[in-house]
């Protein structure tokens, strides 16, 4: 059998926190192997895996939250990069000044 599911989930959360893409790709492969084992497993092995799954439920919740936060961070970084790209392209100053909106255009 592959390493316990709990270990995989904990390691995946840690790797994602430090953005270790190589390690995460290895873990994704481990998960695929685990899945193949599960499909062909005997009823007894499946029971063992069910126990592992219950054991890993808390860590899965953490992993899910870290993935969610990473997705949000990635979106922010995309926007920040886009913003910097535009700034260089149009030669704008590095500090963007706030300009008050003009009155009279739909202002209520």
């Amino acid at each position: 059998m592959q390493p316990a599911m709990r270990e995989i989930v904990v390691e995946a959360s840690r790797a994602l926190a430090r953005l270790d893409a190589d390690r995460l790709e290895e873990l994704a492969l481990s998960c695929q192997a685990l899945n193949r084992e599960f499909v062909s497993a005997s009823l007894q092995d499946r029971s063992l895996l069910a126990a592992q799954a219950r054991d890993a439920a808390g860590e899965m919740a953490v992993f899910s939250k870290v993935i969610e936060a990473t997705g949000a961070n990635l979106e922010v970084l995309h926007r920040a990069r886009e913003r910097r790209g535009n700034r260089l392209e149009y030669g704008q100053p590095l500090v963007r000044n706030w300009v008050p909106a003009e009155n009279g255009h739909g202002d209520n």
Partner: protein
Amino acid sequence: MATISSAMSIMTGALDADQQALNVVANNVANANTPGYTQEVPTWQQSESVQIGGQTDGMGVTETGATSLRDRVLNERLDQQQQLASASGTRLSSLQTVQALFTPDSGTSSSTAGDIGSDLTSFFASFSSLEADPTNTSLRESVLSSAKTLSADISGAANSLNAQQLSIDQEASGITSQVNSLTTSIAQLNQQIETTSPNADAGTLEDQRQEDISQLSKLVGINQITTENNGLSITTTSGALLVAGANNYQLSNGMVDGVTHFFVASTATASGATSDGSSAGGTDITAGLTSGGGELGGYLTVRDQDIPNVLTSLDQLAYGVSTAINTANNAGTTISTGTVPTPNNIFSTPPTNVAGAAAAMSVVMTDPSLIAAAGAGDATGDDSNAVVMANLGNQAIINSSETPTNFYSTLVATLGSTVSQAQTENTAQSASVTQLQTQSDALSGVSLDDEASDMSTMERAYQSASQAFTILSNIMNSALNLGESTTVS
């Protein structure tokens, strides 16, 4: 055609520019370990070209200053995640202290709050023992002894929770001065930045301001709003203004109904801090600060939500047990030969509004012969009322819906679940802070191409993690529903 003199002039200018650029690099190296310092890069400006004899000749470049490599969007996200991580960390730490209170104290002879579950079992079991020999004084004393242990542990737990609440209240109130110190500093830096560098990066001044904002984020949940002239306004997450340009609005605290409330001054000149909330002269923003982020949000969540929830449950448990046992005891017959008091209670009468029942719980009966083991009008050797009181342990006497032991188990399980949830939140938020910190640190030293590579790595990590999560979720679902196969390959 350019002369040798002009060529020399260009070379001299280039050397000067290089020297100044080296100074910028030296400054970066010198400040490598300065907290909050952002790496600077030299800014080059092409010198005006000259036309001699119809031919245009360049005049080289000059170094016009340094620009800090900062990204305000990234910093804001980092501050936002930091305040969430700080809040959940503070909440988790306080909740773990609360949870420790309810850990069974096995291995020692003394009984504590953690033994309430076994106390309940022992207490109702003591009535079962009394059924066998209702007039036995030793068994009657055993009932009172069990009642005393139960009430002492419940009231002890309530008193410990009240003490923890008070301690957290004091910790929270101590944050006010730190917040004021930081908002004052940010307002002063705003003024300097707006005055000295309204249209450009203000270098170390902005570094100092960012460092202050990061510190403030750890203390309290904030929103940042960029204003004109490179200024910054800061509000709490609930919208109360703390800094507006060069002005800051002081936070103060005062006692309201026995607990510390937080006020924000309505004018920038108000000094704020007073010992009495009613004269603080500001707006009460306590509710908005709770769950708003930062250490203060974490403390207030535990003080105003988590601990009161546990205390309310303990009160309901104490009220339910005391009321039911007292009612049953008053309905039976004692073996006392003296005057039977009215009411003939085992436990002190709980407050009618339930609140405070746990802290006030105690045993008022001192004479074991006053335990009414016999039924109303029955002979003293009768055990029917002892049976009634023993059976109360298996009846829904708490909120008319749960047995005492089940209710207590739910209380402990709910507390454990809250701690677990706070742990999950904190672990995930800390991971998010680590990611953003890494990106923020990397930003100042990389080109856009390198940055694109970093982003690509982050996307790979995200996609691989999502893939692993999907597969694991499917395996878990299938494994927990044995016999159902998974389709993920």
